[in-house]
Each structure stands twice: as C-alpha cells, then as structure tokens.
C-alpha cells in the first residue's frame, strides 16, 4: 500500500497544476502572424479562427510588434491572442531589410511558444497575404504551411523554422536564406517565387534567387528534399530532347586555401525523362552525363556568383573557413571576404538509373 501511495505521489508530478491550466475558451490561438513596416513603425498582423454562426472563419487584427499584447486591445475577440501554436510567420520585404531579431525575441523567450513555425519573406504589403484564398478555404495558415512544405519537399526552397532562423542569425559563418513568396499575377494567389537572401548584418539584401536558382542553392548546401528534379534541353546536332533528372545523392568536397575555394560536387542521378533514349549505349550515357555536369557547373557557378554579389553566404562556406582557416577568416568581415574570394565550382554527375526504359 505504501509503495502504491508512493508511486501515485510521484505520478502526480506529471500532472500540470490547475494554476497553469490554459483553456481554449480563454485564449485565441494565432496560427499565422506577419510583420511589416520600418524600425519604429512596425506593424504586425495576426490571423486566427473565430466562430461565426456556428462555423469557423478566420479573421485578422493588427498590433505593434509580434507580441500579441499590443493586439489585444484592437481585437474584437473577447479572448486574448496567443502565439503558442503559431504555424507560419511572414515578414514583409521592407521589414526584413532591417535587423529582424529584436522583433522575434518575444517568440524565443516565452517557453510556451512553438519554435517549429515556418518562416517566409513576402513581396509588398502584408494585407493581401492575409485574405482568404479562393478555392483554398479560410484556413490561410494551413495554406502557407502546405505551400512551404511542398516547395521544401521538392527542393525548391529552404525549410527554415523559427529556431533555425534564430541560430543562423547569431552565426557569424553563414547567412540566412528564407522562402520568398509573391502574389501570382495570373491566379492572384500567393506563390513561391524563390529564396530571399540575407547578409551578415541579419538584413534582407533585396536579392531574390528564382525557383531554379533556389533549387541549386539547396544542392550547394547539400540539403536535398524528398524530390529534387532538374530539367534541361539536350541537343545533339539538330536534334533536341527534353531531359529531366532526379538527384539521388550529393557529395561535396571543398578545398579551401587562403586565396581560393574549390568546391567539387558529385551528384548521383536517375533519369526521369529522355525521349531520345539509347541510354544503354555507353557513349550516349557518357555524353548525357558530361552534358548535365557542364550545365550544372554553369548553374552552380552562377548562383555562387549571385550570392557573392549579394554578400550572402547562404551556402555556409564560412563554416569550415572559420573553423580551420584562421588566416582567411581574420582577413576582415566575412561578408566582404566572401564576396571577393574566387570560388571555383565543379559538378560531376553520375547516372545511376535510367528508369524502366533504356
């Protein structure tokens, strides 16, 4: 009996005290938040579900800063807003052009907040991104979560949550890169446009990689999603053939000296589309491998050049430099050094599979 009583006493520690109970009727969970404006004039927007006529609909309110404290007074809901279950945080591009950490601090400091919320930069003002999306229901936070998750699964954008954002913002040897969303002119729907590049001052540089460049950035980082498809147009004399590949594995080998970085990548790929066929012939296979290697070397080099121009080391070349090459690291601000140092990229492709056709 004493043992049972003792075990019960220990088990009570696993129960939360009634003082700390938080019921859904007392709080309204914000699932989507956004920040726009400039220093001293930041405005936040929150989207959350409300019950109207027995059905759930979503509404938005504005406040100052990401903290929901400022928003409580301006809301018509009788409950306090709570960011503990935040799913997506959007930053308008004008807000992201300044050091964003001070406004995110409140999300990191409160232990109740979820740090796995997705982050993205949006083009222009926030308001249109908070409006219900035609044909997608009212739950816009789920829409953004799915949009970013799908793009990350297809290796189109980095999947960076709040915690990873914070860690990269504090790292001196890598800079932040977030998914960039804009309104599609034709459909009027938010769509992934590429990747927003940040500098080592924690500011959005204004440079955006398009979707293809964005996918290359992911490969440079060796961060492949579940699928990683690239398309080319193969030419042999007058003949042309579409060529699609899926990246199966990536190996990187960086050789860093005090005045140059040589970045070699070995990619194992499978062919997804190649109507020209004849991949069972050694010559064709080698020709295709050489062709893809050459194209990817060109693409990788172009993306690295763009990163250097933006002084944005989103790949993380600075990490081994800081760790093992003190002379190069101490040359000055890493953003400047990175933008000036020659970086040679070489990609070698090995075709592992050709699908169920030759």
């Amino acid at each position, binding site marked *: 009996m*004493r043992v049972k009583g*003792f075990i019960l*006493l*220990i088990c*009570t*520690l*696993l129960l*939360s*005290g009634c*003082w*700390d109970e938080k019921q859904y009727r007392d709080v309204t969970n914000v699932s989507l938040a956004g920040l726009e404006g400039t220093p001293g004039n930041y405005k936040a927007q929150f989207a959350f579900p409300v019950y109207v006529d027995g059905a759930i609909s979503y509404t938005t309110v504005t406040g100052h800063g990401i903290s929901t404290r400022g928003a409580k007074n301006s809301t018509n809901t009788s409950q306090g807003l709570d960011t503990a279950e935040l799913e997506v945080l959007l930053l308008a591009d004008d807000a992201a052009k300044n050091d964003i950490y001070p406004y995110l601090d409140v999300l990191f400091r409160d*232990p109740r907040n*979820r*740090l*796995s919320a997705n982050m993205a930069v949006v083009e222009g003002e926030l308001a249109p991104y908070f409006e219900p999306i035609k044909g997608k229901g009212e739950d816009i936070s789920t829409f953004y979560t799915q949009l970013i998750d799908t793009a990350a699964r297809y290796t189109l954008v980095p999947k960076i*949550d709040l*915690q*990873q954002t*914070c*860690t990269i913002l*504090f*790292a*001196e*040897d890598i800079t932040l890169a977030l998914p960039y969303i804009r309104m599609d002119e034709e459909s009027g729907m938010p769509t992934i446009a590429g990747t927003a590049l940040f500098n080592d001052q924690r500011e959005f540089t204004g440079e955006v990689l398009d979707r293809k460049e964005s996918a290359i950035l992911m490969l440079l980082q060796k961060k492949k999603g579940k699928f990683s498809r690239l398309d080319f147009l193969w030419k042999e004399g007058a003949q042309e053939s579409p060529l699609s590949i899926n990246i199966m594995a990536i190996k990187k080998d960086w050789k860093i000296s005090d005045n140059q970085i040589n970045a070699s990548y070995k990619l194992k790929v499978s062919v997804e589309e190649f109507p020209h066929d004849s991949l069972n012939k050694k010559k064709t296979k080698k020709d295709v491998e050489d062709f893809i290697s050459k194209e990817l070397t060109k693409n990788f080099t172009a993306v690295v050049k763009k990163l250097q121009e933006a002084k944005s080391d989103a790949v993380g070349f600075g*990490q*081994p430099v*800081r*760790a*093992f090459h*003190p002379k190069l690291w101490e040359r000055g601000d890493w953003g400047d050094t990175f933008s000036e140092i020659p970086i040679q990229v070489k990609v070698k492709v090995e075709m592992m599979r050709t699908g169920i056709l030759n």
Partner: protein
Amino acid sequence: MTFNLSRNQFFLLLFIAQTGTVSLSFQTPFINATGRDAWLVFIGVGIFHYVLLLIYEKNYQYFKPGPIASWLFIGYWFLILVSFISYVDYTLAVWAFPDTPQILVIAIMVGISLYANLSRAETVINLSVILVPLIPLFYILLLFAWPNYVWTNLFPIGTLDRSELIKGLLTSQFTFIGIELFLFFRKHVDQQHKVKGRPLFIYQSIWMVFFFSSVLFTLAYFPLVEIKRIPEPIMYILKTQTVSFVERIDLFFIYLWMMWSIITIAIFAFTSIYVLQLHVKGHRKRNTIILHILLVLFPLLFLSKERVAMIQSTLPYFHLFFIMVVPTIVILMNRRKKK
C-alpha cells in the same frame, strides 16, 4: 543506520547524485568560460575526475570523519540542497509552472524526499531505478536533433588563455558535485563485489559520456553568441524538436528532470541524515522532519534569478574544499592514527 549496497546500486546512487540537477545547468557557464575549447577542457576534467575516483577507492577505508568534519559536510550538503531546490523551482516556474505558487512546488518536491527518507534506507537507495529506462530515452530525444548539429562549431581550438581555463575548471566542478558520496557509501558495498579496476572505469566512462556529449551537443547546435542567451541549452534543443507523437518534448523532459532532481535531493538528504546518525544517535525521524522543514523554508529566500546565480556561484569553491581538502585531512589523520 545499517544497509548493504550491491555494486550496481552504489554506482547508480552516485550517478544520480552527480547528474540530477546539474545535467541541465552546467553547460552554459562552462562554455561561456571556455568557448569552443570547452570539449577539449572537459576531456582534461574527465581525467581529473577519474584520478579522484581512483584516489578515493584506494583510501576509502581511512575516511572516518569525526564530528567536526561530519558537521562541515552536513552544512555543505545543506547548501547544495538549498541551491538545487531553488534552481529547480526557478526553472520549473519559467518552463512549466509559471502560475503555480512556488512554495507548493517546493513542498511537493521536498515532501517526496521526506516520505522516502522516513521509510527504510532501501527506499532512497532504490528510488534511482525509476530513472534507468528514462535516461536513455532522453538521449534518444537529443539525437533527433542530429541533422542540426554543425560540427565545425567545435573548432578552432586552442584559443583559451589561463584565466579562462581556470574559470572553466571551476565551473566544470558542478559535474563533480556528489562524488564525495563515494567516500561515505563505498564501505557499504558488498565485499564480494569488486569496485576497483574495470567497474570503476565503466562508471567513469558513463559519467564522461553523459556530460561530455551534452557539451558537444550544445556547442554543435548553437553558435557561441546564442549560447550566452540560453541558460538551459539542452532543454532548448529538445524544445526545437518536432515529433508526431508529442507536441512539446521539452515539457516531457522537464518533468523527467524534475523527478531526477527530486531523487538527487532525496539522496543528499539521506546522506546528511546518515552522517548525522554516525554522531547523534537516535531521533532519526525528528531530525529528518526538521531537515525537510528547513529545506522548504530556506529555498524561499533564493527564488529570483540573481539569488539562484549567487548561491550557485559559491558552490564550486565550497565543493573543491569538500572533495579535496577535507577528505585529504581526514584520510591523512586516520592513516597516522593507524600507524
């Protein structure tokens, strides 16, 4: 108080006493003092820990503290207990129970220790067994963060100066707290069970892996600047992990850590009563109750962050005195007496 310990019981008791509360708190001050060299310094610290265990093992028969030394130890453990309870309560108030009255949380924690200490000696000794399946689980949860560990964060090394090294060695002493229990309980280990040699080395290895990996994980996960902002980095790593079956792994772990700490508190309280009984015969029940009442009241004086930090900053100095100076004096005096 008469009781016998098996070798496993002895090592488990020692491990829980050494790891309980400090498993969450020592990484940040240690890394702040030693920077990226933290992991390298900790290898040296580990060697020192092993040497200390070997010395204890060789001389434990001569460790028979008189009343003065015993009262000094009791005072030292009381300081440790107050420090641990204040820290656990502060951390729980921040992470899990912000609105629950702090005295209630302290009373429940100390109440469990009181219950265990009023029972037979075996109750406290075997309490640690509850944690055996949970500690590996804690490790598995930490490994979920593997893709986010950046191993270049561990370098460059060798940038430490002397004052930083001394500060680092002092802060590393938190991981030693409880090692002195070896001297008190070693004689209770069943004579047929060998402690010297391989068993002691295995214990040292487990201690080393536990603390060393927590330093490695913290360094690899966070940039140095970020570590300065995070007092409980291991909790933070767990908080960032998403698994489909638990929304907040950190909350699951903080309850586990609370149980761990309560058992540590019960072990230190048990040791205090045990040493007291060596010199003050009888009144065990009364003394146990008085000690636990004091353990509820004293931590109430140290509930703010500054006061918790203040009491913790004094611990390494006291600790060095009680694991090195006092045992050396007691052992040398008894060796001389025997001659």
